[in-house]
């Protein structure tokens, strides 16, 4: 047995009591702070449920066509979504889609500035990177408990848990993309007297965009990966169907919902990837690597 060096019980009691105290005293403040998240998620969900199903299929197929300029992906999109509808999962799929979109949008708002800041400061990068590692590797249940205690079960903690899990790749790839911008191109901007702002918006962000888009792609995928866990704390959607399938030992229900998640994953993965590829071609990948 490992010898007991210090008594850890007081530390654990201190942490638990601290959290209780925080929930009691700051719970309302936290909820008020997260209210915009709830509004965002609900409006996306309401909007998507308001739009007729064929319209959503049409729009996603059109986006897929714009991204690839081919018919293969739009056909896949239409077939996959029809399948979701046939399996009587349309409403659940929309709820999951809304959660994923809300999580991705929120992540972009926080992760982009963080990635940009990291690319400019080695100190900040040194501090943030281990935190990102922690966010990605810490089992999500560990932070689900305190998040649920603070916000109560519902959509907000599900959204926050999804953001915590899905944000790291976007932060990392934004930082990486900006630091990979050709040194001589940056030097040229500097030599012509560009201000830091002109360099950021005129050179760094446009050239890092393919990498940033790869980060957004990762974020959408990881957000989808979280839907089952998120549904445990009240997110609803396809994940909830999977949970019910498990609970009732209904293999078919779990399988159908699982396939629905896969369908959404394929659609969003291929569309974002295709946009990234299009962007890279426009820049000229060989030049980018030079």
């Amino acid at each position, binding site marked *: 047995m490992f010898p007991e060096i210090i008594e850890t019980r007081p530390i654990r009691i201190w942490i638990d009591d601290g959290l209780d105290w925080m929930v009691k005293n700051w719970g309302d403040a936290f909820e008020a702070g997260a209210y915009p998240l709830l509004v965002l998620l609900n409006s996306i969900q309401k909007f998507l449920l308001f739009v007729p199903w064929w319209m959503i299929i049409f729009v996603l197929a059109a986006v897929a066509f714009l991204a690839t300029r081919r018919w293969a992906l739009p056909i896949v999109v239409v077939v996959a979504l029809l399948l979701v509808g046939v399996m009587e999962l349309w409403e659940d799929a929309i709820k999951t889609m809304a959660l994923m979109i809300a999580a991705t949008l929120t992540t972009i708002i926080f992760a982009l500035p963080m990635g940009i800041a990291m690319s400019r400061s080695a100190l900040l990068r040194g501090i943030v990177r281990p935190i990102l590692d922690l966010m990605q590797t810490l089992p999500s249940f560990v932070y689900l408990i305190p998040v649920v205690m603070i916000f109560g079960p519902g959509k907000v903690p599900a959204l926050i848990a999804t953001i915590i899990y899905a944000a790291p790749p976007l932060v990392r790839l934004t930082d990486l993309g900006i630091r990979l911008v*050709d040194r*001589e*191109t940056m*030097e*040229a*901007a*500097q*030599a*012509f*007297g*560009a*201000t830091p702002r*002109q360099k950021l918006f*005129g*050179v760094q962000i*446009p*050239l890092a965009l393919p990498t940033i888009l790869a980060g957004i792609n990762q974020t959408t995928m990881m957000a989808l990966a979280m839907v089952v866990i998120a549904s445990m704390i009240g997110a609803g959607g396809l994940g909830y169907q999977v949970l019910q399938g498990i609970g009732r030992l209904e293999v078919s229900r779990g399988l159908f919902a699982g396939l629905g998640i896969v369908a959404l994953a394929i659609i969003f993965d291929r569309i974002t990837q295709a946009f990234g590829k299009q962007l890279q071609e*426009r*820049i*000229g*990948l*060989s*030049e*980018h690597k*030079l």
Partner: protein
Amino acid sequence: MSERAIIELKNITKIFGESPEEALQLLKKGLSKSDVQAQSGQVVALNDVSLSVNRGEVFVVMGLSGSGKSTLIRHINRLIDPTSGSVVVNGRDILDMAVEDLRTYRRTEIAMVFQNFGLLPHRSVLENVAYGLEIRGVSKPKRRKTAFEWIETVGLKGYENSRPHELSGGQKQRVGLARALAMDSEVLLMDEAFSALDPLIRSDMQEQLLDLQKKLKKTIFFITHDFNEAIRLGDRVALLNEGELVQIGRPEEIILQPANQYVVDFVRDVNRARVIKVGAIMGKDETTPCEVAVDQSASCEDVLPLFATHDWVGVVNEKNERVGSISAKQVISALARHQATIS
């Protein structure tokens, strides 16, 4: 400061490393570069380099890789700050400039062309050429107009809407050149501008630069590792070796009087007949009547055929006034001098 000098580098020393000051003290104590590097672990990129560039001349710094030439050129627009020394351009020490002044200086007085072009891959040729003007805050119609003109001047008319990755190396560097020229700044920095190009394209670009320079009369600070390019382009050439200046002079001076063995090694491969001008080696005889005369800017190669029928020919200046004479013997000894000195 001399009237004609536009760029003056004074005692530039640049040390790369964690604590350059320590290495600088060692250098000042008179230790050699390699001893300083061994003792302090710092890299001495430039050691006490002083030179001045005259208004309107093409000044070429030639050196091999690691000689510090790219570091040197970056001092002139302060992409790099020296460890010690001063950089005076147009009478002002640019090291004293505040950030805002430095930006204005870069936007108005000095433009740069890069070895690997440094173009913006997400922008069209037109937008690339207009980039410097955009940074300067020139209005869109005005900068488009200027960019169109320069694109035509460098011979890329019709490519305005292409993207850099659709162009060949030579075309890309024309874009880089047009971008710098569009700034209409007095000083043009060219960092190995033609080194990444194929030999034939490089030769074309050199010719184009010389043609443009006849009209524009810019002050061009040109960096190269190619001795022939230095000789061809430079009104004056400086040779840099391991961070130290070896020799500065007009191309003929360097070929006819190489300062040391290092320079001799470069001079050996030069086509002397093409580079040495008659004016540099002619005799003083201005009076004896002659049957044929050549211009003093003619090369030895140009006069050689005349010696088939003449022992000597007269030399005249651009106003067609007789300034000297040149004989077959003088030409032969000028062409052969370098073999004579090393044997």
